[in-house]
């Protein structure tokens, strides 16, 4: 009984940490412009629209976060093997991973923007100096919370995987969940703010991103407050729900029916989410209505 109570407490804590991780991940990838919408940031100078937006997408978010979280987990694990205090070990690992992320962001911006030089896109050193540290700060939060959640799963919930292996699994899941939820919001709502709300961007408008903002040219730092409005919390909710339900159904129901209890509960949760999704879809169709009269 006590095992289950501790397990539920750890599950709740891991779910909350994962929610923060998801929000910080999406904010970091929007400030650094790393998700799929970065294809527009790369395309804009080629269509003649130069800009001052950061350009960090050497890889997508899932493999990049896998690298950083696994690095942090690996270093933390090494320190834990030397009997260093757990919190200190995780912080050391996260600091190292954040420096690697900073190097990644710097080389990515310099390289990708330099490759656009023949279209007249300049490399702005002040953009490099101001935005890189902001992304590093958000990345620190995302990596630290994910590594802590992995540490809890490994130590308190006795998952068979070692800490670095858990880092690969959850780093990739963090990047995938945050990327899937936050990318459309950044791409359509921020980069194409001048398009009419409530419709997709027509293909003819590709590359014509918003480059002039509230005061002067748009800077990527302002994507932070924008992401915090919906994309960040939605991504946090997504990853938090994933981690929470994955742990919750196992901790509570694994002893029921020889392990099949967790499977049955998982099927029920999937069906519940399917019903919620169908409700959201019908709500949209009813409240927004068709674009053209239905044939």
């Amino acid at each position, binding site marked *: 009984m006590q095992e289950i109570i501790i397990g539920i407490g750890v599950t709740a804590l891991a779910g909350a940490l994962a929610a923060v991780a998801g929000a910080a991940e999406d904010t970091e990838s929007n400030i650094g412009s790393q998700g*799929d919408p970065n294809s527009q940031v790369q395309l804009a100078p080629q269509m003649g629209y130069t800009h001052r937006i950061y350009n960090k997408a050497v890889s997508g978010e899932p493999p990049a976060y896998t690298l950083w979280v696994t690095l942090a987990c690996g270093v933390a694990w090494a320190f834990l093997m030397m009997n260093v205090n757990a919190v200190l070990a995780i912080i050391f690992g996260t600091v190292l991973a954040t420096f690697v992320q900073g190097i990644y962001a710097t080389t990515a911006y310099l390289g990708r923007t330099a490759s656009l030089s023949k279209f007249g896109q300049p490399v702005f050193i002040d953009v490099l100096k101001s935005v890189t540290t902001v992304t590093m700060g958000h990345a620190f939060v995302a990596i630290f919370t994910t590594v802590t959640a992995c540490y809890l799963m490994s130590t308190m919930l006795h998952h068979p995987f070692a800490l670095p292996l858990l880092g690969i699994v959850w780093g990739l899941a963090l990047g995938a969940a945050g990327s899937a939820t936050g990318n459309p919001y950044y791409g359509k709502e921020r980069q194409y703010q001048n398009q009419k709300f409530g419709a997709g961007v*027509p293909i003819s408008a590709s590359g014509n991103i918003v480059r002039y903002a509230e005061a002067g040219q748009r800077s990527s730092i302002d994507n932070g407050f924008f992401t915090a409005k919906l994309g960040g919390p939605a991504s946090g909710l997504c990853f938090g729900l994933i981690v929470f339900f994955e742990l919750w159904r196992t901790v509570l129901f694994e002893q029921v029916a*020889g392990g099949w209890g*967790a499977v049955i509960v998982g099927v029920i949760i*999937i069906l519940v989410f*399917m019903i919620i*999704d169908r409700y959201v*879809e019908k709500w949209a169709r009813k409240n927004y209505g068709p674009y053209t009269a239905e044939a």
Partner: protein
Amino acid sequence: MSAIAAKPGANAGAFQPVASVIAIILAIIFIGVAYFLGNSGILAGGAMLPAQTLVGIIVGAALIAFGVHFVPVGGAPAAMGQSPGIATGVAMLATGAGLAGLFGGAWAASLGFGVALAGGAIGGGLMMAITCLMVNISYVYGMGIPAASGKVEKDPITGDSQAAYKSQGTEGHGLPFISYVGGVIGGLFGGLGGTLIYIELLDFYNASFPALNIAGEGASALAVGLAGIFAIGMFLVIAVLSAYNITGTIEGPHDPKFKRFPRAIVAAICASGICGLVALLVVAIL
């Protein structure tokens, strides 16, 4: 000969019979090599265990390749509401779901083969269910866009009309219900295949470590770690291979591109054969 002079009418997604037969023959050769290695004692565990493990790995890889084709991926256009699907890459999204499933399956590995496989499948399906729901919420509440597909007139499951809800100048947006269900099924197959590969390798390593005089607490941790890393690596190989077959974006099981999946399954059988053989031979150099 230039690309322009290539045979006209060659379909990008056409099934290649000669290459497929060669791939299947190669896979059978690999299984034969595994049987030979087990029989001659180079790999411990008895005559049948290496071959059995390799067959399990190949089946798992085929399941992963099939599952990846169900996942609705829109890529960069989806991030701007120009095409339906999730705005991430195919390989990474499928891998994320499969790894979340592997996490659950590895946890249940001690409870039995069937339970572990089911747990892995459900883990992958659950991650895709939550992700697809949040994607739809992002489109509907964050961008004010209803879900619509550009490839079909009516949703095959719900019968909703699609053309009137598609904004002008785009190919569709969001996740119609068939895409959502496709995503969940893709996660189920991905988690199932990944967990199968992991369990097969884990059983093989646990059986062959005692013969090498590696035993005790460290041995089981080593077996788990090795099996986990090889399962993740093979998952990535198969996911990227299937992503090439899809050529970037797919709307789900209703997309005409979905019919290309036999090619990916045959390629996965051959690729996982050689990768599995390497995973088995790792024990021989320890």
